[in-house]
C-alpha cells in the first residue's frame, strides 16, 4: 500500500542532514575506448567534493561480483569478463577527450548518504 500511496522510500526520496550526492557521468557510446579523462574542471567546480575515475580505484577493490555464479558441466567456475566498478580503458567514449559539461542538475541520478 505504501507504494500505491506515494509513501515508498526510494534512495532518491531520502533527505539527510549534510547529504552529499554522486553524479555518474556515462559514456554516450557503448564499449568505446577511453583515451583520456580530464577531471580538472570538474574538480575545480564549486561544491565538488571529489571526482573519481576508474584509475582512482586500487586493484584490490576488484570488480562487480556476479551474484549467482554457476559452474560449467566440468565443474569449473563460469567464465566471466571483468566488470570494473568505473570505466577502465574501455566503455567510456569514442571521442578523443571526455569533455566535462556541468550537468543540468548534478544531484539527480544517484546519491549516497554522507
Amino acid at each position, binding site marked *: 500500500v505504501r507504494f500505491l*500511496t*506515494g509513501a*515508498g522510500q526510494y534512495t532518491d526520496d531520502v533527505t539527510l542532514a549534510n547529504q552529499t550526492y554522486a553524479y555518474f557521468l556515462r559514456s554516450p557510446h557503448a564499449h568505446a575506448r577511453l583515451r583520456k579523462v580530464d577531471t580538472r574542471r570538474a574538480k575545480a567546480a564549486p561544491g565538488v567534493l571529489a571526482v573519481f575515475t576508474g584509475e582512482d580505484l586500487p586493484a584490490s577493490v576488484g570488480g562487480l561480483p556476479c551474484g549467482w555464479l554457476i559452474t560449467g558441466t566440468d565443474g569449473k567456475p563460469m567464465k566471466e569478463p571483468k566488470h570494473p566498478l568505473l570505466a577502465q580503458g574501455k566503455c567510456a567514449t569514442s571521442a578523443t577527450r571526455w569533455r566535462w559539461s556541468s550537468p543540468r542538475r548534478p544531484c*539527480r541520478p544517484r546519491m549516497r548518504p554522507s
Partner: protein
Amino acid sequence: MKLSVSLTVNGKPVSAEIESRTLLVDFLRDRLRLTGTHVGCDTAQCGACTVLIDGKAVKSCNVLAIQARDRKVTTIEGVATNGTLHPMQAAFKQHHGLQCGFCTPGMVMSAIGLAAENKSPTEAQIREALDGNFCRCTGYHNIVTAVKAGLETMES
C-alpha cells in the same frame, strides 16, 4: 529569476518563491517533499512523474512549476481520502498491478487521467493510454487488468 507562484496541491493552497526554471516535479519533491512523484528518466519518456493538472495527466518533469500557477495539481499522495484508497489504487492492490512500485504512482495518475477522457475504454485503448508509462518490472498485464477494474469501480 525569482518568481512567486500560488497553486493548489492536493486540495491545499501553496505559495512559494521559486526560480523560474524550477520544474514542477522538483517543486513537488524537493520543496513540498511529496516524493511519491518519481523521476525515472527526466525526459518525459517513462511517466513515473505523472501528476494531474486540473484533472489532466501530465508529466511533471516537463512542466515548469510556474506553468502550474493558479492550477489544481493532484499527486499520488492526494488521491486517497482519509485513509481510503482511491478506487484505482484499490484496483492496483487487488490485481497486483505493481511489483517494485517505482512506476506505480505514474501509472495510477495516468489511469485516473484516462478516466476523465474515456470512462469505458477497451483494453487496446488502456494500453495506448499507458504507452507513456514504463514498467521496468514489465508487469503490464496486471497493470492493464487493474486499470480496467479501477475504471469500472469509478464508473459504478
